[in-house]
């Protein structure tokens, strides 16, 4: 078990309890600075582009996308899997570390959980939109109907996806919101504005901080955490089964579920790192998000990226070892050396090789390099999904049906729109909600060896 002897003080700067509240609530009290409005403008531009793409997709149908008979899954599934992967940040980070009693999660968990909720909402857009007639979207749920009643195909991973993601969205947003109740009460009690008092008072559900409530609150955190931890593994396994239950070379592998889960955790942690460096820099939270925190995340990334490296090499090895000509073709001629080799090497270098630089303490300490590598991992993880989806579909068993795939501006617009939505939610979070879990940070302020 880690203790503070290894980790160092979790919060630096000799803070008092009152100072913690002041520091963390200061962005809520102050007017946002010019960069906030600049980013907001960028978000609105992307959202407008996204709204246009949405209008075309719904009004004209998914014929406006670049899909064809061979490539029936394109950017929408890539972006779906990518967002879901990022959505593993909060649960993997916050809940795994909660269950393992890693106290250093306290400064980071709130933002990571928010990322989860927003990323999953972004992800959900794509499967709903790809239906084409979204007003019939409720068909994906089992409801009593007058067709027999004819139920759904419960053996289909696509149906498992629906319930897994709905559950994941519910569980992670509840975990995030319930964890925020005491902090909302803090804002309610310190604010002088009547409107703020009313709004934060409404959402803090009448929290007063009695020992009875705290005790149940802590138990509830454990209980939801314990249950949701299983979701981290199950959600992305199910997403992987969408691919793995097919018979396409490059998809039809048993390694897919663990491979996807690890990939999701890698991209989730990378996004947490990106976001935390930004928050720390912009809001000067150096005492809360200390070097030691970022250092720890970097070390975890080394480990996860090693597993990714093993997964990539296992895939290639098995393709060679199976001596199956289709597998050989997909992996060696199509991915490693073929038309899509650039995407393949971007994926390999940024996910399996670049994070290995974190072995060196000097690199872990240079935040600019850490930031760049974290962005590279995010991009690399997007290309991983691109490689998986596109290489297998463009060149399948029949050379006569080989084709190319390029996204149209509508597909790019949908992605840009979700991206704008993601950043917009982050901006609102920065401005209106406590970015760091105040009550948890206060709890670990005096975390000493004897505890």
């Amino acid at each position, binding site marked *: 078990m880690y203790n503070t002897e290894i980790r160092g003080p979790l919060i630096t700067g000799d803070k*008092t*309890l*009152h100072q913690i*509240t002041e520091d963390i609530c200061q962005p809520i009290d102050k007017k946002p600075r010019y960069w906030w409005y600049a980013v907001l403008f960028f978000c609105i531009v992307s959202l407008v582009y996204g709204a246009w793409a949405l209008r075309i997709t719904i009004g004209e149908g998914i014929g406006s996308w670049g899909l064809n008979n061979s490539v029936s899954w394109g950017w929408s599934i890539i972006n779906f899997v990518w967002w879901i992967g990022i959505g593993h940040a909060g649960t993997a980070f916050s809940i795994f570390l909660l269950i393992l009693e890693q106290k250093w999660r306290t400064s980071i968990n709130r933002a990571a959980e928010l990322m989860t909720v927003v990323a999953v909402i972004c992800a959900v857009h794509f499967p709903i939109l790809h239906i084409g007639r979204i007003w019939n979207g409720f068909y994906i749920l*089992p409801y009593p109907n007058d067709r*027999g*009643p*004819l*139920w759904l*195909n*419960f*053996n289909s991973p696509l*149906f*498992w996806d629906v*319930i897994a993601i*709905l*559950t994941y969205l*519910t*569980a992670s947003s*509840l975990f995030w919101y*319930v964890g925020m*109740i*005491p902090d909302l*009460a*803090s804002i*309610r*009690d*310190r604010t002088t504005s009547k409107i703020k008092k009313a709004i934060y*008072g*409404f*959402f803090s*559900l*009448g*929290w*007063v*901080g*009695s*020992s*009875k*409530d*705290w*005790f*149940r*609150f*802590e*138990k*509830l955190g*454990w*209980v*939801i955490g314990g*249950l*949701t931890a*299983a*979701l981290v593994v*199950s959600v992305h396994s*199910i997403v992987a089964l969408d691919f793995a239950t097919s018979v396409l070379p490059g998809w039809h592998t048993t390694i897919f579920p663990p491979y996807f889960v690890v990939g999701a955790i890698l991209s989730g942690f990378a996004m947490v790192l990106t976001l935390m460096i930004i928050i720390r820099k912009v809001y000067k939270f150096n005492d809360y998000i200390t070097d030691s925190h970022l250092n720890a995340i970097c070390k975890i990334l080394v480990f996860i990226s090693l597993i990714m490296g093993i997964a990539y090499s296992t895939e290639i090895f098995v393709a060679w070892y199976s001596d199956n000509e289709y597998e050989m073709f997909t992996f060696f001629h199509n991915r490693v050396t073929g038309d899509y080799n650039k995407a393949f090497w971007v994926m390999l270098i940024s996910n399996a090789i670049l994070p290995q630089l974190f072995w060196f303490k000097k690199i872990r300490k240079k935040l600019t390099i850490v930031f760049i590598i974290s962005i590279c991992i995010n991009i690399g993880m997007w290309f991983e999904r691109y490689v998986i989806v596109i290489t297998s579909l463009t060149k399948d068993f029949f050379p006569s049906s080989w084709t190319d795939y390029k996204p149209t501006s509508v597909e790019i617009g949908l992605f840009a729109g979700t991206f704008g939505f993601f950043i917009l939610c982050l901006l609102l979070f920065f401005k209106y909600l406590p970015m760091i879990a105040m*009550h*948890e940070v*206060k*709890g670990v302020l005096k975390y000493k060896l004897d505890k």
Partner: protein
Amino acid sequence: MNTAILGVYEDEELLISALRKIRDEKIEISEVFTPYPIHEVFEIMKRKTRLPYATFLFSALGAILTYLFLYWASVRSYPLIFGGKPLHSVPSFILISFVMMIFFGVLLSVIAFLIRSKLYPGKKVKIHDPRITDNVFVILIDKTPDMTSDQINLLNAIFKECGAVEILEK
């Protein structure tokens, strides 16, 4: 008429030492308000909860009901063979039941927590001290009719001795 005595503390350790002393004097502590959860306080207040059992029950219920529904829908209501798979496809059903177990467990536990702690949107609460959610710890002791003035004096003495920053009577 004052009905309660409040001891206000600014330090966790002082609070705990005061709580221990009050407990040893066998004076009933009505409630302790803190800005963050403190395990010693839970111990002294002898807090108990059946929430984990409730969660177990909700999860089990969710899993069983889901499995029964899937069985009924696929085998009884509309038996339709597709892909040569059996009507009663155990692995798929287990997977769906597992996910729904988590869904029911989490959702109903949160609802149970909110109901049991009587937390709801827009609740009007009596806030003993607005600093509780910031940096102070408050011990609340209700004055019961059979409380002697000696006990009240003793209580004041304990509060003072253990470094209370304020002692209020409300």
